Structures are given as C-alpha cells and as structure tokens.
C-alpha cells in the first residue's frame, strides 16, 4: 500500500480538507525523497540507538533510550542466572548483549549512587504491566552494582521456589520446615560464579555442624559453606540460609556493600502450588528458602540496598491483569514491605521505541521489506502498543 498511499496523499494535497491532510500532503514528497536516496538518514539513527558508554555508573539522562553494550565475559560473570530467557536467546543470536537505558533504571541508579550506608537498607520495588522491562531494568542495576564491586545476592525468580518443586525434604535444622535441595543447590552454584572474589574474603562467625562428620569452623571463609551446600545437596537449603544470615550480619560492618535483588518477590507472600504427601497445601513460610529470604528483605540491616521486582507472569493464583503492588503482594506482603519506594516501569515512549527498532534493523533482525518504512513502524507500534515484550515477540516473526 505504501506507494499507493503516497500517491493518494499527494492527490489529496489538492483537496481542501481539515488542515490535517495538507500536512500529510506536504510531508509526502519529503518522504518519497527520503526513500529514493536510501542512505541519507543513516547517521542519526545510529546516534539514537547506541551509546558507547558501557559503564552503568556513567549513564545519565542523555543516554536515555540508547543501548549500551555489555562485554560477554562480564555477562557470564555477573549474570550466571537472572537474565530472562528470551534475552539470552537474543544475546546468542546477535552475539552481543545490549541493554537499553531507560528512565526507571536511571532513577534507581541515581538513588543507589546516593545511598547512605549507615541507614537501614532501602527497598525499591519495580512494578509495571507485563512485558514492560522490569527484569531487564533489574539486570541493569545489578550490572551497575557489580561494576561498583558490591556483593550481589540475586534470586532470579522467586516463583521457581514456590512451584513445581520435586523433592521436598523435611528440614534438618527445623522440623517444621521443608527443604528444597535442588533449587538451593542450583542457586548456590550460580551465586558462587557471580561472587567468586567475596567468598574467600568473608569469614563465617559461627560454627556450623552439618552432620556427625562434617562441620564448618568459625572463621572459615564463606566459600566453604557454599562448597558444602553444592556437594552435599541435602544440606543445600541450610547452606543458603547460613549464607543469607552471615551476609546480613556482616554487611553492616562495611567490608562490602550488599545488594539483594529478588525478581518476582510476590512469590514470597502468597500461596504455593506445592503439596505434602497427604495433599495438604504448603504455605510459603514452611519452605526454608522462602523463610530465610523473607528475613533478608526486611530492612533491619544496613550497608546496602534491596531492589525487588514484582512479576505476574510466573505467579501462581494471581489474575492476569494484576500489576499493582497491592494486588500482587497481598496484604501480608505489602505490610511487610512497607515502606518501600515504588518505581513504575512503563511501555516505551516514542524515542525508545524508535531506538529499539533501529537496534533491530542494525542487527538485520527485521527482514520484512516494510519494516524500515514509516508505515511498518506505525503498524508495529499499534500492534505492540509500545510494550517492549510484545514488540520483541512480534519482531521475532519478521
């Protein structure tokens, strides 16, 4: 339709209608000219979609809407787990990891740069509709903190801990609670990859007895606890609990800054889909992992920050359209997290949308011949309603 549309628009210039048409009429020849010599507007989109600033600490307002590159080794070190699966696929396809700098992330970075470590940890909650970019914003923050040499405690998706768990053992530490060895051991492995350098620095301050033969002495590095959890899967959950406790205690001392990043934090206070052998449902507090994590996100420690994300996508028993903190956290969760700083993550604004399309075009991701035309962009805009997730899924087909 494009050419036909163009000719019709030009013919419409002669018709006097609302000033509307006259505008489009006058723009039509320019557009035609632009399309005729294709190479002209290349310079400006490049400036729009990418930036060379790859240190999140230096990202500011001027970088808004632009993609910055994360080197691939960094990616493996900082994000062993935690990137959304579709993003991982995109990274593999394009052979580069580019995150868009967006306003919510910039806001959070600003707050984090000005944190007062003597005060109790501030809680930030990223919320928004489905597919608006909460997880990726979280990843941006984590990258920043990693660059700043914080200790990152990143739980990629808390929902994974409240549903579809196979082996639940009765906890050795506390008879009331239940262990999840698999999930805990996986998490410990990833935690180790992410925070290698800290594991030797931090020393445990208590003696922990695992069983009759093994125990960890006071003063031994945290790495040992982690190793113990990974090798002895049965004690993995307890190892996680110990790690969390130690880190919380010691972050106030000032050796390191602690970032607690939990994605899908609404899983902590809700229902689980897990059942005991006698088919009675399990409440979240009866899971040791969840119980310890809840202690972690309480703001009774200082020396770091807590960044949380709400997510309806993986949640259980929550309506599809719910995205507000009150709805997703429930009364209990909201009261526990209160006070927190809510940060809304919304859909793309036009500049960001344009930048995203340019990024895909540069990587030759959009093969449809109409994709780079104005009409095509408008179609994509309408169909995705500027929602980043939807846009990504749509472009995957083109």
């Amino acid at each position, binding site marked *: *339709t494009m050419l036909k*549309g163009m000719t*019709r*628009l030009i013919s419409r210039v002669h*018709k006097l*209608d609302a000033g*509307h048409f006259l505008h489009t009429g006058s723009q039509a020849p320019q557009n035609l000219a632009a399309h005729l010599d294709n190479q002209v507007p290349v310079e400006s989109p490049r400036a729009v979609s990418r930036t060379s600033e790859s240190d999140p600490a230096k990202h500011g307002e001027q970088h808004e809407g632009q993609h910055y590159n994360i080197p691939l080794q960094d990616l493996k070190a900082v994000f062993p787990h935690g990137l959304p699966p579709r993003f991982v696929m995109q990274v593999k396809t394009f052979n580069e990891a580019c995150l868009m700098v967006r306003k919510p992330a910039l806001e959070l970075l600003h707050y984090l740069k000005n944190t007062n470590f003597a005060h109790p940890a501030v809680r930030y909650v990223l919320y928004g*509709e489905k597919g608006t970019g909460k997880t990726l914003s979280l990843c941006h923050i984590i990258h920043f903190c990693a660059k700043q040499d914080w200790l990152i405690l990143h739980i990629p998706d808390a929902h994974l801990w409240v549903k579809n768990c196979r082996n639940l053992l009765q906890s050795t530490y506390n008879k009331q609670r239940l262990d999840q060895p698999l999930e805990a051991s996986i998490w410990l492995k990833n935690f180790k990859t992410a925070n290698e350098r800290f594991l030797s620095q931090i020393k445990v301050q208590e003696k922990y007895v695992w069983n009759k033969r093994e125990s960890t002495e006071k003063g031994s590095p945290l790495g040992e606890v982690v190793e113990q959890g990974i090798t002895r899967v049965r004690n993995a959950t307890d190892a996680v609990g110990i790690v969390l406790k130690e880190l919380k205690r010691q972050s106030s001392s000032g050796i390191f800054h602690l970032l607690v990043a939990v994605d899908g934090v609404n899983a902590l206070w809700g229902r689980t889909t897990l059942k005991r052998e006698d088919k009675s449902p399990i409440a979240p507090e009866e899971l040791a992992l969840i119980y310890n994590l809840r202690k972690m996100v309480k703001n009774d420690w200082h020396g770091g920050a807590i960044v949380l994300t709400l997510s309806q996508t993986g949640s259980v028993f929550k309506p*599809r*359209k719910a995205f507000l903190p009150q709805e997703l956290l429930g009364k209990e969760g909201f009261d526990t997290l209160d006070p927190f700083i809510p940060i809304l993550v919304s859909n793309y604004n036009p500049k960001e949308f344009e930048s995203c399309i340019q990024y895909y075009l540069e990587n030759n991701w959009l093969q*449809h011949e*109409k994709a780079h035309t104005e*009409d095509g962009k*408008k*179609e994509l*805009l*309408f*169909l*995705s*309603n500027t*929602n980043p997730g*939807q846009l990504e*899924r*749509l472009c995957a*087909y*083109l």
Partner: protein
Amino acid sequence: MAAPCVSCGKAVSYRFFLGARVSLAREQGLWKAAAAEVQTGTASQILRLRHTTVVSTKKNIAALRRETYTLDFIKKQIEEFNIGKRHLANMMGEDPETFTQEDIDRAIAYLFPSGLFEKRARPIMKHPEQIFPKQRAIQWGEDGRPFHFLFYTGKPSYYSLMHEAYGKILDVEKHQNQLRAQGLFSEKTKTKDLIGSRWLIKEELEEILVEKLSDQDYAQFIRLLERLLTLQRGGAEEEFVQRFRRSVTIQSKKQLIEPVQYDEQGMAFSRSEGRRKSAEAEAVVYAHGSGRVSVNGTDYLLYFPVTQDREQLMFPFHFLDRLGKHDVACTVSGGGRAAQAGAIRLAVARALCTLVTEEEVEWMRQGSPGQEFQQGTEGMTSLFSPMSGMPAGKTHSAGGDSKAGLWNHLEAFSFTHLVPGLSCLKGWDC
C-alpha cells in the same frame, strides 16, 4: 387358509390400501385397477394374491413414471387454493379480498408452528403454480400433428426464442441500412447502464422455457442477446432484452448511513456499532488522537493478549493509512475473543466512514484484492463483510455479501407435497 375368503380378501385389500397410501398424489384409478385384480383372485390363491398385489403396484409405478399433472388437476388445485385462501382469511378475521401471500404465510406460521430447522420442510401454503413443477401442455393434436412448427427440433420453445431474437437483429439491421441510405443514420451509441443487472442464469432460462438446455445452447443465446445489445435499438427491442435481465441489488451500499457527531469539549467523534457472531460492539472513534485504543475501559493490549485480535483492530486504520491518528474508546460484550475483535473491527470501520471521504468509503466497501497483510492468514475482502474465510453470522445485517445466497431457485420446487389447499383443516372443522 380355511378362513372365509371374504375376510381374507378384505384383509388383503386393507393391506394393499396401507401400502398404496404411502404415495399421496397417486391417482385413484390406480387403486381401482388393483382392487379389481384382488377381487378376481379366489381363496386358494390368497398367498399368491399377496405377491401379485405387490408386483402389480410395482408395475403401476413403472407405468406412471412421469407424474404428469393433468390440466384439470392443476385447475382444481388452483380453485381449492383460492377457496382455502378465503377460508383462511375468515379464520384469521381478515378481509378475504385483500389477503396477500405474505398474510397467508404469516397465518400458516401462526396456526402450524413448527420447530423444524429446515425452512423448506415447514408447512406452506402457496399457489399451485409455485408448488407443482411446470409442465408442458400436450403438444400435438388429436391427429398426432404437433402444434409448434419447430416441434421436431426437440426444444421448440428454445429454438423459437432464438429465431425471434435473430429476427429482431435482422430487423434492426435493415432499419439501420434504410437510415444510412437516407443519410439520417447517426452514430451515437447509447450505452445503457448494464451495471445493475445480470443475464438470466441457465436454470432460470430453463424454468421459463420449461425445457432442458445444454450449456452451449445457453451460451449461444446469451451471445445473440449481446449482439442485439451492441446494435442501436429502439424501445421494443429494449423491452425484449430486458426480459432476460435480472437486477442485482448492491446490498452493502444500502446500509451505511453516516451521521457525523460532535461532542462536548469540541472533540469530533463518531460512534457506531458492529456485530459478529454473538458479540456486539460499540465504538467511538475520535477524529484527532494518537492511536490509543481502550476496550471496556482497559487498554487493548491487556484486553487482547493475542496478536491476531490486535491485528483485527488495526486493520481499518491500516487500510486507510491512518494508524496513529485516531483514538478509540469501545465497549464490547458477548461472543468469544475473536468474535469480539471482529465486532470491534466492524464498528470501527463504520465509524471511520464518517470521518473519511466518499471514495474511501467505496474503496473500503469493495476491499482491494491486492492487499497484503503482515502475518494474517486472511485474504482480503471488503471491510464490511465478516472476516473472510469464516462463515457469515446469521444475524449479520451488514452483509455486503453479494455472493451469498443469490440463487435459491430450488425453493420453487419444494420437496414437500404438503398440499396447498386446506383440505385437512376442512376435515377438522367438521
């Protein structure tokens, strides 16, 4: 077997009656002939009689293979119909003189309510000409000589029609030659507007002529008529040709009434409705906006998570190249997910008519076949017809479906032989 033959005879004949009553429209002569046969049989032949009665019915069927309704029979049926019509009018309390066919239909539907789905199976009362198939009168006289001069061609009415048409062509040409000779011939060719009408179909022609035609015959006839059309012709020939043309109503043109509206705050908007399957939607399209669409108060991205539905919403705007220029606020209820999307699409398209020029409306109505669509599997038909590939809804008023249901000629030949006369009612009255 030792039973008295009289009762057996009666039993046999009774069984025979039952067998014969299956076919209603049989002549009475049939029964009398068979009954005569029964009576000739004796007691000892009872068993064989049963067989022979069966055989005799079969033979009689073979003999009367062509069910000709005699002229008297048809006349009698017509009289019965008229009398029955008057009775019916009296029953319904209406005036017998001005009782039309629609009134009859309504009365029958009222008196004999039927839940059958097939409309043609329901009770009807129509003029015998519409019920009984047309037959030809006997075409030869008592001496065996046929009346029509073309009888031996096998299709006399068809060939006589061709003869007539060709005669008219020759007349017109002769007339034109005369005019040319006199120098009064003017070259103007008036092209009559043939757009709103179409030629008769072969079935319709067969129905008029009451004989079977072949495709080549039909094609030949149409060619002749078209040749007549190309010549300059006067009024009589015009009338002759018009007999063979039927008008085609352009349905969708009738339905689009477009009021323009302005609301408070000076915003120009237009509101209209659309329906699809059992979903009803009402859309309010604002003339100036940024492309936000809200459905039942929520954003359309949340309401229609499936891309296909959003494509449906996008389509009217995309067709007119007005993607980011209008805001829409709509309400929808009923139906399923795709039906609601289709209903909103229709409502939006209709609403856009007001805000758009006439020729674009025409363009929308026809749809343009060359349109491509990003991911949709739909081909392109007009915006006012339901999603292509899907069957049109029953209540769908905005059909634009000129292709559907053109031809229901078979209704003239109804299956049911439910008799048009009200003989059954007469029976009940007594």
